[in-house]
């Protein structure tokens, strides 16, 4: 090269050196006949491939076919696969050679794991600068980590299911659930001091749910829960025991006069119509009550069904009222009533 000549010289590489840099090179003549290949590609094609036309050994996908090497040079990115099973796929680039012919450099792309497995390749089959080994490494590391995460998620799901089973809170209203109510009822029975049990059912809740939607229904339940909570003492248990059913346990409430005051307080708190997104949600409360005297030996199930009888009596009498089960006369008597309950029934 002459002094001051800044033109890039061409490269003269022997096949050995080229194969070390690019173990998957493919050298073609102008008519697309295979002149030579890197050691890894030779292993994949078989030695007999040298001298054959390109399309005898490979199925071309991009470009669809190449009788002349120039077709390969025009394609931006080559895609091809081996004709023989397992039809390993390659992507590649073609560049013109000084003189004649083209040089292709091929790579496995995303199929690298399959190719390595199918052909039993090892690290020495890749150029030291190739990131294929790192890619395989990352694939396995990712698989191991995901396996751990999946096992952890399974354990957490199991733990969550167990916790939900044991939970005592109704997530929608923040009140106790049936489990909490049953536990509190057992405690009161064992304590033997006497208490009142109120079984509350919403009137017209289904209509609100059907006409205004479930979010309105959920809003109503949460609002009723808050108003019931405000109507009783902090230590009293308020629980949501079903869709639109609530139970209140009032420790130490032993007579109908005290119960009457509480009923009046509840209906007072319910006087303002609940609204959801500006639309009124007209619901009412029917309440069945039962008084449990000190030292009562009645079963819990029997108590609940007596409260149910009183609740049924309230519904039958026109809803919107609290009825107390009277054990002496085997009937329920009215203790409190919501404003306009009579009017609603008549209309």
């Amino acid at each position, binding site marked *: 090269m002459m002094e001051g000549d800044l033109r890039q010289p061409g490269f003269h590489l022997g096949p050995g050196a080229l194969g070390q840099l690019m173990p998957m090179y493919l050298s073609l003549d102008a008519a697309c006949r295979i002149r030579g290949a890197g050691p890894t590609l030779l292993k994949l094609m078989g030695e007999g491939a040298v001298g054959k036309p390109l399309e005898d050994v490979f199925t071309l996908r991009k470009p669809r076919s190449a009788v002349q090497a120039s077709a390969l040079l025009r394609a931006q990115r080559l895609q091809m696969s081996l004709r023989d099973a397992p039809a390993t796929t390659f992507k590649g680039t073609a560049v013109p050679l000084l003189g004649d012919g083209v040089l292709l450099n091929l790579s496995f792309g995303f199929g690298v794991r399959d190719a390595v497995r199918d052909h039993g390749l090892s690290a020495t089959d890749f150029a030291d600068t190739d990131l294929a080994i790192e890619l395989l490494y*990352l694939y396995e590391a990712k698989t*191991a980590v995901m396996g751990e995460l999946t096992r952890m998620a399974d354990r957490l799901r199991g733990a969550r299911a167990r916790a939900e089973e044991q939970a005592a809170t109704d997530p929608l209203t923040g009140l106790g659930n049936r489990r909490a109510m049953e536990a509190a009822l057992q405690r009161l029975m064992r304590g033997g001091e006497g208490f009142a049990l109120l079984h509350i059912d919403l009137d017209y809740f289904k209509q609100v749910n059907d006409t205004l939607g479930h979010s309105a229904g959920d809003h109503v339940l949460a609002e009723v829960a808050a108003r019931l909570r405000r109507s009783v003492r902090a230590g009293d248990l308020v629980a949501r025991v079903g869709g639109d059913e609530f139970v209140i346990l009032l420790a130490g409430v032993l007579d109908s006069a005290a119960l009457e005051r509480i009923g009046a307080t509840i209906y007072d708190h319910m006087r303002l119509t609940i609204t959801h997104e500006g639309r009124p949600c007209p619901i009412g409360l029917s309440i069945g009550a039962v008084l449990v005297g000190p030292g009562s030996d009645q079963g819990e199930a029997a108590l609940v069904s007596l409260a149910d009888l009183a609740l049924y009596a309230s519904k039958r009498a026109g809803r919107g009222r609290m009825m107390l089960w009277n054990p002496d006369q085997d009937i329920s008597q009215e203790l409190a009533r919501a404003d306009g309950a009579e009017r609603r029934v008549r209309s």
Partner: protein
Amino acid sequence: MHGLVNKALQSFISDAFGAAVWRDVAQHAGITQLLGADGFEAMQSYDDALTEAVLDSAVVLLRRPRDSLLEDLGTYLISHERMEPLRRLLRFGGVSFTDFLYSLDELQGRSHLAVPDLALPDLALSEAGADSFLLTCSDGPVGFGHVMVGILRALADDYGALVVLEHRGIRRTDGADGPPGTVELIEIEVHDPAYHAGRRFDLATEAAR
């Protein structure tokens, strides 16, 4: 300490000595209440004190010196079938045992690619002579060098190489060129890189789990 490390310690104790021994160790270390029946979770971080407590309890209950217990942990990580994914990840380091030794410089970076918050100690390999090397483990948990000796011993066997390994002790750094910490030195002599056939390693397996 990362959950993967703690989980490995837990698996080692229960696989090598029995699930009942692990329960005793956990009880003795006072972590049963804290962690529940499943013990450590792999993808969670724990206070270093928990790991130390488990290790101390294992030393007491198994009546084994701490160093040899740690070395056995290292061997377990490579040779137990449950730890096959880890063996494979390390074998990606090189085609021969010597090649693998040179990849230890990159181990921190490699592990960082897989689990960014794993925080393995810094490893540096230097040549001490022909086929003789010195591995420096910096700023790891104290005793990590012994785990490393166990790992190297098992991997040498895996590659089929004949090597002699020696832990050369722990040195505390004063912190003149950085935060104070510990340095552990391991001497490695490779007598025959192809002493026996070793275990097979395919780059891609049918079912890598």
